[in-house]
């Protein structure tokens, strides 16, 4: 890959002095879907957080280049404007702020930052309605406060709805499947698949293979103890489903 959209080189990151990421190397090209799998505590969510700019993580070594820019130097809001989107594992409830208002404020902040014209209320609403149909979202969710009182499934659906509205270049889905029943999982996956195109890259982080039946990745990477210990095609996910993560441990130790 000559110029990948995202290039991670020897990335190390720590939380409260404890090293969680211990040398990640990964290149993601436009249009590609990469799955990151791994057992609990392997550093999956830390990787997602570092890429989105969560400041509770300290990057101790390595570099991340996104669309030719030093991603780690950018503020979270600037990453968003540049096209990075993180679907949260635990979406935050913000009582007092309307769900649609928030989304419009975010979208227009990004457009301003990129020197594009802001979307007026009517155009925005039209777009929102179209995207909501994609996620089979209940109309009332838009009139409520951001994620307030949403069920687990509604929150995840709202994340993908936001993604559909913001149209990122790099979407990072952090355990989007956790807490979803099979019907909700299908709807969410359908929404994600509708957003797959040749320009958009996706990093799908998951503990279970189940999600990858519906969002079929181009590449699968296994994260263990802060390093990628194995990479392969989509069949690697099936192998993991069958054998679990245990068989990779010796390889991890050998690295």
């Amino acid at each position, binding site marked *: 890959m000559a110029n990948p959209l995202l290039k991670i080189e020897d990335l190390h990151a720590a939380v409260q002095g404890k090293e969680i990421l211990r040398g990640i190397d990964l290149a993601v090209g436009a249009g590609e879907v990469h799955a990151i799998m791994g057992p609990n505590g392997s550093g999956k969510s830390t990787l997602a957080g570092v890429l989105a700019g969560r400041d509770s993580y300290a990057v101790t070594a390595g570099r991340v280049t996104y669309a030719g820019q030093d991603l780690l130097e950018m503020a979270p809001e600037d990453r968003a404007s540049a096209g990075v989107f993180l679907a949260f594992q635990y979406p935050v409830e913000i*009582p*007092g702020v*309307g769900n649609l208002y*928030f989304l419009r404020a*975010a979208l227009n902040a990004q457009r301003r930052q990129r020197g594009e014209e802001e979307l007026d209320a009517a155009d925005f609403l039209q777009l929102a309605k179209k995207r909501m149909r994609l996620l089979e979202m209940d109309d009332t969710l838009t009139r409520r406060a951001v994620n307030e009182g949403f069920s687990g499934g509604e929150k995840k659906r709202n994340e993908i709805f936001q993604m559909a509205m913001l149209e990122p270049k790099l979407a990072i889905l952090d355990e989007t499947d956790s807490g979803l029943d099979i019907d909700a999982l299908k709807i969410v996956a359908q929404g994600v698949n509708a957003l797959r195109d040749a320009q958009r890259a996706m990093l799908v982080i998951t503990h279970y293979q189940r999600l990858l039946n519906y969002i079929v990745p181009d590449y699968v990477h296994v994260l263990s103890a802060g390093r990628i210990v194995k990479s392969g095609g989509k069949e690697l996910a099936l192998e993991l489903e069958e054998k679990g993560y245990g068989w990779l441990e010796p390889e991890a130790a050998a690295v």
Partner: protein
Amino acid sequence: MSAATLTAPPAPAVYTVPDAAYERAFAAIAARAGEPAVLRQLRRSAFAQLQQRGFPTSKHEEYRQTNLAAVLQRSAFALPERPGAATLREAERAAQPGAAFGGPQLTFVDGHFTPELSRLNSLPAGVRAGGLLSANDAGDDRLARLGELADIGGENTLAAFNTAFFGDGAWVEIAPGAQVDAQIEIVHLATGGAGVPTMAHPRQLILAGRGSRAKVVETYLSLNGAAHLTNAVTEIFVAENAELEHARLQQENTAACHISAVHSRQAADSRLRLHALTFGGALTRNDVVTVLNGPGAEALLNGLYVAEGRQHVDNHTVLDHAEPRGASREYYRGILDGQATTAFRGRILVRPDAQHTDAVQSDKNLLLSSDCTANADPQLEIRADDVRCTHGATFGQIDEEALFYLRSRGVGAEMARHLLIFAFAAEALGRLNPSPLRTRLETELFSRWTGLTPPEGAEASGG
């Protein structure tokens, strides 16, 4: 054992007796011609009580956080006459834009009822309203109700202070069964004095008849930046199955001292929504005492206080569950910045007869600086055994995870922070029924923090 240990130390002064300036001021009121005998008697006994007891100091258990005696004794306050033409013109400008929404309005300047600035000519069906002392209706029965709730015979010397000195009051009576959509406005304007601070003692009597539904808003404003004292008392009677929403909006200047007491009594199956919204004042002390005096009564106490600089806000509430199956919801929310200090004391009393009471209390504070101080003191006194009663208080900064969430969507750091402050306030405003007042406050607060005009749908109700 020495004699010295047998002698108790002198009791700390819980009250200080008002000085001679108040006596002179009261003499002028007592000499006022034309007041009904029942009121003269009421005033005399109130002032006698004030002289006997005095103003509460911070040694008084209920005033530990707020030494009112220090303020009230610091200087004599002038009791202004009825407003002159110049003041009226000034007041007219202030009374117009924000405070009025086109419905019925009673306007007071320094506690004097000002018909020129009031709008009472087209009262909705079932509403009677006017100056407590100046309305033309035979008013003896309404004067007889004054003080019935505000306990002028007891320890509450601030209510006595009000009763002795009030100019006129607002009287609002909703007929049984009347369904009133218009918001009834009571606006109090304070002129502030050149040199000597002025005082006003606003008084309200609100009677909601059986099965009626209505909305009353009290707004307190200053005409300029000069220091003044407001000592307001509101008494509210809610009859069986009536529904009343009452909002109290304090937007006085930051030199003012604002003292208020809202006393209410609810009959069976009535619903009362009380909102205490405090934005202004150097020193504010609000008391709310509501008695659920009939089975199945419901009360909402919704407080929002925003304090910055050196502002001090003290909210004391008492929810008195006297009868069975009552439900109360009490939510107080504070936003503090600068060196602001606030106190919240919420007492829930469940009397032995009040079985199946369902009471929830919460006080949450958002601290925006490291120099501000918030206090919370929940007090539950439960004497019935089959009740549900919960309480909680929190003090916190802006939620970092929420901040990151907003930023990760592209909202700039500063805007994200301001949006979260607004959101904290909007949750409280969301407890007001939709009304012009709620819309206005949402707009004002959104602009206050974000510097922007809010588009449609910026807020979402907090339930």
